Every structure is written in structure tokens, then in C-alpha cells.
């Protein structure tokens, strides 16, 4: 069984503050994050 955490945050990155969806593994290590409004997806490939 796999456990993951999905967070919705407001975050500032590159001088821009917006809503982000962040996916983390069960240890709290980030897997990916995505700007919710812009639809940008950044996969960190951990």
C-alpha cells in the first residue's frame, strides 16, 4: 500500500505568488508540484 500527501498551498516562487498543488511521498519528500491556475507542471523525478 502506498501513502502520499497532497497539499494545496499559496506559495511564492520566482517573485510570483499563486496557488500550488504539491504531491509528497509518505516521508514528506516532494514528488511534484503544479501551479493550479497556470496549469504548469513540474515533476521533480525523485
Amino acid at each position, binding site marked *: 500500500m502506498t501513502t502520499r500527501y497532497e497539499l*494545496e498551498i499559496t506559495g*511564492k516562487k520566482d517573485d510570483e505568488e499563486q496557488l500550488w498543488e504539491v504531491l509528497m511521498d509518505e516521508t*514528506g519528500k*516532494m514528488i511534484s508540484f503544479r501551479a493550479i491556475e497556470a496549469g504548469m507542471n513540474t515533476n521533480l523525478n525523485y
Partner: protein
Amino acid sequence: MIQEMQRHLLGICALLGLLCTDHIANGQSKVEREKSIKASEVPASVIEWMKDAYEGPKRIRWVVEESDRGISYEAKLKHQKQWHSVEFSQAGDVEDIEGSVDPRSLDGVLLESIETSLNASFERYRILKLQRQWTGSSDDLEDAMRVRPMQ
């Protein structure tokens, strides 16, 4: 003759470009529609799974979601003071469970790790919503819901 061939090649390239653009646009489209349904409209196997996993009658809101991937069923309920959302495939197989989590209820080491990850990627942040998601076999998920609350 060469000019005619060049025109043909340009035409083929333009057509391929149009096809690729259409394919990409279709690949990105995601059509989802949710509507509330009655328990009587949910497959019997789904109802049974919920009874086994959550042990006993609970107030459950049933939702059917239609998307380009097909139909899925979702049960939304409150369990041990937390909101749970259980998703099932059209065939009635449980796919995942999501539960709301209060960040303050997390283990200190885990919370520290989450904060470290966020600090590494964002100049500043504020957590608005935190959910825990379980995926796995039907039996494993059933056992997990029976023996422990979501943290």
C-alpha cells in the same frame, strides 16, 4: 517538376502539423462531470466494500464522475472526525482513499520533512489544504480503514 514536389512536401508538412496540433489539444482536454446519486444506483460490490471497511452504517454522499476515462463512483463521508473520499472504478473496484488531515496532527518528523521540502522550492508558503491518499489492493485499503484513523 522540383517546384511541384516542393509544394507537395509543404502540403504534407502542413497537414501533419495540423494533425499533431489536434492530437495535442485532444490529449490535454479533460472532461469531468460530477453528480450526486442514490445508494441504489451504486454497484452492490461497492456498498459491500464500504460496509466492511467502515464497519456499519454511516451517512454517505454518493457521487458519480464521468470523464473521458469513463465512469467512477465516489463515496464522501465523515469518519473519525475527518472527511474521507473513497473512489471506485466503474467495475466497483476501490482505487484510492483520500482523507483530510490537520497538519498539527502530523508526526513531528514528517511535518519537519514537509516543511523542509516546501522551503526548498518556495520563498514562502502557507498550507491551505492537506490530504492523505492511500492506494493499494482492496484488502489492504479495507484493513487500513478498519484498524486506524487517518492522520
